[in-house]
């Protein structure tokens, strides 16, 4: 038993060394510098909670929080509803071409934030962009997609949803195709409508996968940065300045690492709180449940 434990430690060591060096220790150090006036290259001094006081009284922080909340609610709601609808639509298809359509639907998950910002900047372009052309053709006015306060928010939400939908489909579709077909056949015999079939068969069976996807997508969306940064840099004004962008500007534009670290810790705590249930479930799934089965 003893030697077995020693080997266990040896086998686990590389992973934990890597995580300690790159994530845990730096993050703890970030905890320390959040209590100092650390700036790159300068000697730092302990300043207590001044950094926390600083950002908690900074209207920009509250703006970023508000923008982030709106962004998360909009992006997650739309992607979950549309992703669910697309997954269910694909699952009921009988066409042999189904896998081709699925390939099209999954494609955005391969697109990097950089390339999607190129594509969507072009689509949104006020002068040469195809979106404005089609709007005009349909009798609407051209829009200043990325440069208007409200429209910029709508634009970044659209792009984030576009990138996220394949991930929702990947949660829902595999769950859906395992449902026994005879349930639906029985319901049809009883004369159930399509809505009733969804409401009383599909959705209850799908709930675990759907909830898992929901929590996961919230966690992922809270940290959104790349695409929004590349499309708007948080502008115009601060209309799309998410928490991550606010923190980034504090750290890498104003070079106030102390307060950026304080904001980082605040973000970490928010995420851990929201994801604690998820962490617990994944742990149970991987380690406890299967031990009980054995």
């Amino acid at each position, binding site marked *: 038993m003893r030697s077995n434990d020693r*080997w*266990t430690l040896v*086998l*686990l060591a*590389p*992973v*934990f060394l*890597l*995580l300690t*060096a*790159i994530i845990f220790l730096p*993050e703890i150090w*970030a905890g320390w*510098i959040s209590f100092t006036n650390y700036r*790159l290259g300068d000697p730092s001094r302990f300043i207590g909670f001044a950094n926390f006081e600083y950002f908690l009284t900074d209207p920009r922080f509250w703006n970023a929080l508000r923008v982030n909340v709106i962004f998360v609610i909009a992006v997650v709601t739309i992607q979950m509803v549309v992703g669910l609808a*697309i997954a269910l*639509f694909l699952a009921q298809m009988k066409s042999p071409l189904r896998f081709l*359509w*699925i*390939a*099209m*639907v*999954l*494609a*955005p998950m*391969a697109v*990097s*934030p*950089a390339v999607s*910002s*190129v*594509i*969507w900047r*072009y*689509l949104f372009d006020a002068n040469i962009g195809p979106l404005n*052309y089609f709007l005009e053709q349909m009798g609407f006015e051209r829009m200043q997609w990325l440069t208007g306060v409200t429209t910029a928010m709508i634009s970044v939400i659209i792009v984030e949803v576009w*990138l996220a*939908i*394949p*991930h929702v489909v*990947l949660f829902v*579709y595999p*769950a859906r*195709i395992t449902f026994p077909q005879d349930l639906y056949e029985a319901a049809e015999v009883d004369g159930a409508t399509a809505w009733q079939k969804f409401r009383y068969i599909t959705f209850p069976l799908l709930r675990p996968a759907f909830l898992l996807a929901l929590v996961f997508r919230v966690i992922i969306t809270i*940290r959104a*940065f*790349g695409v929004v940064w*590349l499309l708007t840099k948080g502008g115009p004004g601060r209309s799309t300045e998410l928490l991550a962008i606010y*923190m*980034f500007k504090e*750290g*890498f534009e104003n070079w106030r690492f102390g307060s950026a*670290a304080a904001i*980082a810790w605040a973000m*970490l705590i928010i*995420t851990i709180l929201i994801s604690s249930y*998820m962490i617990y479930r994944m742990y149970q799934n*991987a*380690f406890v449940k*299967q031990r009980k089965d054995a």
Partner: protein
Amino acid sequence: MAGIRSSNSLAKRVLSALILTVIVIWSFGPIAIAIVSSFKNQRDIFTYVPTVVFEPTLGNYATLLDEWSTFWRAMGVSTITTLGSAALVVLVSLPAAYAYSRMARPAFAISALFLIAVRMFPPIIITIPLFPIFTGIGLTDTPLGLIFVYASFMVSISVLLLKVFIDGVPREVDEAAMLDGASRLKTFVHIMLPQIAPGIAASIIFVTLFAWNDFLFSFLLAGTKAKTAPVMIAEMMGAVGEGAATWGTIFAASVVQLAPILLFVWLIQKPLLRGFQSGGSGK
């Protein structure tokens, strides 16, 4: 009755085709536009009325080859960091997954909570402490620095994934091999590895999607010498305003960056749809 039925099903089929068209245009339309535009000359890209019929040209790709050696350099860095992080992830997570599955007493399983918690860390918050640290030890602007960071964020999912696959191999199999006198290592390499190959492939997939497409870390920790393709593309985008780059060249660069990873996603589509990801996927 039969008449109503068939017109009903015809209406249904038309509606279904319509929905499918909208879904496909929404998902793939933007990508298709990028691909098509990369074969258009500047004049055809810049017309307000979209040109559907145009003379395809390889001019943008030629410009990319002739004038943007920096882009190809960045593609090279992307390739190195992606392969490097995939290798590092597999190398460190295989032993850990094996230990969790086969050797560890329940007390050790608690440590896995940390692994899962790391999965939830927003990557951006680690950039604040990592930037001064990497600068201090000379890891900024090196592919090696990026490899460490990418691997760190992907090992946890990889360990959990591989553990599930190793759990799936019956214990009797390796016990039988060991009774025959094979060492643990030999048993692992010859008996276990072939059986968990799909799990290893899955880990590599997640790392690849993450490392190849990452913008954040490369932008912050490797802005010049070890610049990766996504950062280079973002820079070219910025150069459009100054007239130093054209839309056509950027579309070509985007297609070069996107094509391999898109083909990769399509190749692994079937296993993805079987649902082994459950909470895994990269972003």
